[in-house]
């Protein structure tokens, strides 16, 4: 019975392969394996992907796989992508090393994999479309340090230790701190990208270093927002602190507008739509022209170059009073 099923399945699969070869007008199937959909940033990324012109006009079919923050779950999604004979795959890995084996299997099955947002330690990616986290770390550190006059005490809220985002942003922050010996780091601990963890960590730090903290560097916005909450709940004035984060999530944009913090926008839209254009180029070949508006937007900083570059660096944009309203209106 089981053998019969398997045989039947194999026949079915084979006949399907033939029909899909016969009908060229079928939409291109692209899977997107992302690390997890619980955080706002990945939601923005996914929504931007579905908003890509090629998805909207039906030339491309997108299936988003939620990795649920578990490298094993993501690993199995490579296999699902292979069995379902997707034409290309976008990858936002959970772990920069654990993803390599899956990428190798997909590439061996003839499916090009385009990395986005977070890095995967492999040379088999067709391309990587993301932002340089070292640069982001430098920008967030500079935002805080310039506000305190490059003198005083800061605390640093880190992402999950060992994740590529944490490692690279910490590197950027360290680069800047090394140049300014008058700035002292009082505390540097992980709050796992989480607002609530940062809140309680900051409460403890405010108690331990009463009146001594001048600046708060968040490796992401969520944690900076948690720190703001802790400052407010301790009855202190947010304006006595220089606070900054990275990503440009909606709440952080609101906080920038309210003059409570600074933020550096990581362009989820450019990362997602850029990666998809590169993936479609892999499938359709030379004749393909990118359809997302982001290539026009970043024309001077990120050139399309026939879609065959190994790395596309999406620029960071500091969020300021002059652009915050425009960014907020894009979130509706």
């Amino acid at each position, binding site marked *: 019975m089981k053998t019969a*099923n*398997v045989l*039947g*399945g*194999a026949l*079915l*699969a084979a006949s*399907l392969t033939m029909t899909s070869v016969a009908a060229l007008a079928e939409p291109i199937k692209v899977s997107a394996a992302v690390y997890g*959909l619980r955080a706002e940033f990945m939601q923005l990324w996914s929504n931007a992907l579905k908003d890509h012109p090629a998805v909207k006009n039906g030339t491309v079919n997108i*299936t*988003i*796989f*939620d990795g*649920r*923050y*578990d*490298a*094993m779950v993501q*690993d*199995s*999604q490579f*296999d*699902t992508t*292979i*069995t*379902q*004979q997707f034409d290309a795959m976008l990858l936002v890995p959970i*772990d920069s*090393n*654990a*993803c*390599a*084996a*899956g990428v190798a299997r997909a590439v061996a099955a003839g499916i090009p994999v385009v990395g986005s947002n977070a890095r995967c*330690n492999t040379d088999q990616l067709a391309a990587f479309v993301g932002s340089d986290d070292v640069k982001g770390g430098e920008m967030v550190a500079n935002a805080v340090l310039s506000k305190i006059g490059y003198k005083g005490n800061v605390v640093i809220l880190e992402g*999950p*230790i*060992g994740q590529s985002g944490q490692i690279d942003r910490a590197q950027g922050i360290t680069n800047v701190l090394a140049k300014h010996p008058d700035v002292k780091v009082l505390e540097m601990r*992980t709050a796992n990208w989480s607002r609530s963890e940062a809140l309680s960590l900051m409460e403890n730090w405010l108690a331990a270093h009463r009146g001594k903290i001048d600046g708060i560097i968040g490796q992401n916005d969520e944690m900076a927002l948690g720190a703001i909450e802790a400052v407010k709940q301790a009855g202190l004035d947010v304006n006595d602190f220089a606070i900054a984060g990275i990503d440009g999530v909606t709440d952080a944009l609101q906080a920038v507008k309210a003059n409570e913090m600074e933020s550096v926008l990581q362009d989820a839209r450019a990362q997602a739509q850029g990666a998809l254009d590169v993936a479609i180029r892999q499938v359709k070949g030379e004749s393909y022209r990118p359809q997302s508006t982001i290539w026009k937007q970043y024309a001077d900083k990120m050139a399309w170059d026939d879609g065959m570059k190994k790395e596309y660096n999406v620029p960071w944009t500091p969020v300021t009073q002059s652009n915050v309203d425009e960014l907020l209106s894009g979130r509706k």
Partner: protein
Amino acid sequence: MTQESAGVPSTNPAAATPSPRGVKVAEFAKRYGIILAFLLLCIALSLASPYFLSVNNLLNVLRQTSINGILAIGMTFVILTRGIDLSVGAVMACAAMVAASFAAGSEASPVYVPIMMGLLVGLGLGMVNGLFVARFAIPPFVMTLGMLSMARGLTYIYNDGMPISNLSPAFSFIGQGVLFGIPMPVILFLSIFLVCWGVLKLTTYGRYVYAVGGNPKAAKTSGIRTRLVLFSVYAISGLMAGLVGLMVAARTSAALPQAGVAYELDAIAAVVIGGTSLAGGVGTIVGTVFGALIIGVMNNGLDLLGVSSFYQQLIKGAIIVLAVMLDRSRLGRD
């Protein structure tokens, strides 16, 4: 029920002398209900997705299920004794980290060293659970909840929170290799299933496990060393978690300190869907394996159909409750 059968003629003829056919159907449903449910799910999914029944996909499902399946088999031993092991996910991560540290980089030890180390860590932490539950009568929920946190802490301490990658090809074979066309994790899953099924079904020890869970007092008076049995089931569960740790690290060629979070919940779900009673003494390894397969097939099928993972969680939860409800109504009939 007992009063009715003890003389007074029943008003309900079906209850007193059920038709042979009724008995057969009820008996069949009781024995094979879970397998039927599994087959129905497979049929539904193969109609819904053309990819479901392909050989590759079925092997994928089996390989993906092997992780939860082996944890759930260990968990079955524990739950049969009225216990619970909440620490398996964390113990698994700890074993994976320790094993990986002996399998990484250019100075990797021969492959049996990381394997032994991983299994020993799992077994050792499981024995600590067993010792405190059996010898010091700490409630299993509390002890293993404590171990969940301790093992996770140890995992982070062991390599300062950093992942370990670049594991040797020989070690990675445990997770990535294929023997006779069958993925290694599936071979391990099948072997563990056969061994544990045999142990519970055919050995004196197996009968002791059921006896300790069914009626601890009676088990004790009949001369069973109940504490030793209790101790052993946590050791078994720990050993299984150690093995799964090896498989997970080998699969991705990397050990991550945050691996295995909430894996205990899926393992418990598989055991419960498989018809093992949380009240102890009732349940089978076969049921657990099909419980794990149902979860695995469902995750795979919903992925194939492109159903959002938010709905997947909703559906999984509903299936757990439904499975226990069916179980209850079955017990009621008995």
